């Protein structure tokens, strides 16, 4: 199918383009930018006047809740939510039930996702069996089944020796390892940042030291083993500083933060809003400012939604008992634009953090729009203001701190491999 996207403002951060350029698609790929190829008879013309045309978003953490958590959400609902959010490639963490520690599970997931013909799904495999942190998984087999990286999700290691061996083994095959920097003992039972708000509200707390100490361990072992590390969901100013320093010393480390951490802090917990119970916790305003600065200067490579649909039953509970996490794949775009506007970082930098950079982290050829690239495209209206109504979200997870708030920026069209998979007002 030949598609002509006309009158849009093309922003392709990787190729440094921000200009009024038309896009021409054929056979699932971008065949030209700017001028139409000769005899290009478009089957469909999409008018992107006043809209921005950018690479389809690449979201590094979207929980699809399959296998195992189908009562919370299904592949169908979450994949629909993803493309409505302009996401064309997503990585899903291994903390399903059972965890993604067997090639068969990974294959099934990929198969189911492929049949839906929506976003590309990149499973992150479990680093240890059952995510128990004790025995290594068959990483090579899992890689063959389709895993692009390995992780423990939120689960801890039994001890650092296991972590060391896991990194060594992954390094053997040059498999990237994604790790959450959180010392389990220091974080035990904690639900909020160890600061003024937790003290006022009487909430068990997680000190920044939990992140710093774990990060120090991870970075040291990464250096020792040569493993490629990605730090998932940083939360503190000190954490950012450590990553900045490690990068300066040439360590092959990347990192991301959840989109909510770019905006919210411990103050947003207010009167115990369980929608603000997140992991890692929302920290102080100073930490948030450092995260924002890290995003701007590239220390933090990517923004992700950390999409976690949670049922009302386990979310509308007293704060410390509520399950941690927020739904967010449909908000990744508007919240990224919000950061761009508030920080002055500019649209190209902001979009890079959700397209080219995460694509590089995933090791896929995506997140850019040069001729020859797959036609994974997001078209959005940056001026469209809309109200976040949980009931109207396509995700089955209605748990968002932004419930009732107005945001700017809405996806109008999403294309995956040259197919129009989502069009606003066209369910």
């Amino acid at each position, binding site marked *: 199918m030949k598609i002509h996207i006309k009158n849009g403002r093309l922003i392709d951060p990787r190729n440094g383009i921000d200009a009024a350029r038309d896009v021409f698609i054929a056979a699932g790929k971008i065949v030209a930018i700017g001028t139409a190829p000769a005899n290009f008879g478009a089957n469909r013309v999409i008018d992107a006047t006043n809209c921005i045309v950018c690479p389809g978003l690449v979201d590094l953490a979207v929980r699809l809740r399959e296998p195992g958590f189908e009562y919370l959400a299904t592949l169908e609902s979450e994949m629909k939510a993803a493309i409505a959010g302009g996401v064309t490639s997503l990585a899903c963490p291994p903390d399903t039930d059972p965890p993604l520690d067997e090639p068969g599970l990974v294959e099934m997931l990929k198969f189911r996702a492929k049949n839906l013909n929506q976003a590309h799904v990149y499973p992150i495999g479990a680093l240890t069996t059952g995510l128990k942190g004790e025995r290594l998984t068959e990483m090579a087999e899992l890689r063959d089944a389709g895993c692009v990286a390995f992780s423990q999700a939120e689960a801890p290691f039994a001890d650092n020796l296991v972590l060391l061996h896991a990194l060594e083994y992954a390094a053997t095959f040059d498999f990237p390892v994604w790790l959450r920097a959180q010392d389990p003992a220091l974080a035990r039972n904690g639900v909020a940042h160890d600061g*003024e708000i937790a003290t006022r509200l009487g909430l068990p707390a997680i000190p920044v030291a939990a992140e710093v100490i774990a990060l120090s361990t991870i970075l040291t072992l990464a250096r020792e083993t040569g493993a490629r590390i990605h730090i998932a969901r940083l939360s503190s100013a000190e954490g950012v500083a450590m990553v900045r320093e490690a990068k300066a010393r040439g360590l092959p480390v990347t990192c991301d933060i959840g989109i909510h951490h770019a905006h919210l802090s411990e103050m947003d917990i207010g009167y115990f809003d369980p929608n603000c119970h997140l992991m890692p916790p929302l920290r102080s305003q100073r930490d948030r400012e450092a995260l924002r600065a890290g995003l701007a200067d590239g220390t933090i490579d990517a923004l992700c939604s950390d999409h976690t649909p949670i049922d009302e039953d386990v979310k509308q509970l007293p704060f410390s008992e509520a399950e941690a996490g927020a739904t967010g794949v449909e908000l990744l775009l508007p919240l990224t634009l919000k950061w761009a506007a508030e920080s002055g970082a500019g649209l190209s930098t902001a979009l890079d953090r959700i397209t080219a950079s995460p694509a590089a982290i995933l090791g896929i050829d995506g997140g850019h729009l040069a001729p020859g690239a797959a036609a994974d495209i997001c078209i959005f209206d940056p001026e469209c203001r809309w109200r976040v109504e949980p009931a109207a979200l396509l995700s089955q997870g209605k748990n968002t701190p932004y419930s009732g708030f107005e945001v700017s920026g809405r996806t109008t069209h999403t294309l995956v491999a040259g197919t129009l998979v989502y069009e606003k007002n066209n369910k």
Partner: protein
Amino acid sequence: MWLDPSNPQLNKNGELHHLLSLEGLPADVLRQILDTAVSFVGVTQREVKKVPLLRGKAVFNLFFEPSTRTRTTFEIAAKRLSADVINLAINISSQSKGETVLDTVANLAAMQADMFIVRHAASGAPHLIARHVAPDIHIINAGDGRHAHPTQGLLDMYTIRHYKGDFSKLRVAIVGDVLHSRVARSQIHALTTLGCPEIRVIGPKTLMPTLVNKLGVQVYPDMHQGLKDVDVVMMLRLQNERMNGALLPSAQEFYKYYGLTDDKLALARPDAIVLHPGPMNRGVEIDSSVADGKQSVILPQVTFGIAIRMAVMSILAGN
């Protein structure tokens, strides 16, 4: 990020609708409760200790965390207001069988409850409930996790005012496990709102919350320094679990450095009063000779506690 920026405890006229926490309540609301309680103390001294204010109203004691003491005081207070009282001790294990806090409350509200008195082990539980009940139901927090115990804070303020009068000239010391104490937090908020110029918290670092000074207190790791010239000493209960959690080595060492003995009390003003929310661990945080001594106002606290709870329930029910 809840849309409701206003204090969830006050209705649109600024009157008390729920009592969830003393933080954020204006001084005149606190004073109204204390003043009203004076009249109820009078009632408790009569032959007929009842007044008909809450006749026909149903008060549900919803205790998700067990407590005979507090529940009994609320029950007595409600009955003295002629209310119908239902006690519900929610077994936490039956909670995990599927009925959430909100489901429990919804079921009870359907039984024409007018007021819920809620105690829960998790901070913020009464706030959650208050957000989900019908607008004509009142919630009183009887203690939530480490966060707040507003009626205890109020009765402590009543006690202090009764013996010392003006808050604006007092030095008050709070001693013990502040980290885990909802009582301490409520006391601190009340004291700052009522104008107490100097509030000291005394205890080992392991039992002090992070940045506690931001609540408007001064931290004294040394009890001898901390008690010097204070007018009021408020002792906190030390739970046994603290030794297991590697927060303290032993009750003995705690007693030696942070227990209130006659010697240590002598460092305070000669007319200083001693409070304790109870139940006391004699010989751990407080010596019997102090608890039973002439500076102790621990027993009057109990009487005042009933009057305070009657005042709170009356004010809420009428708003």
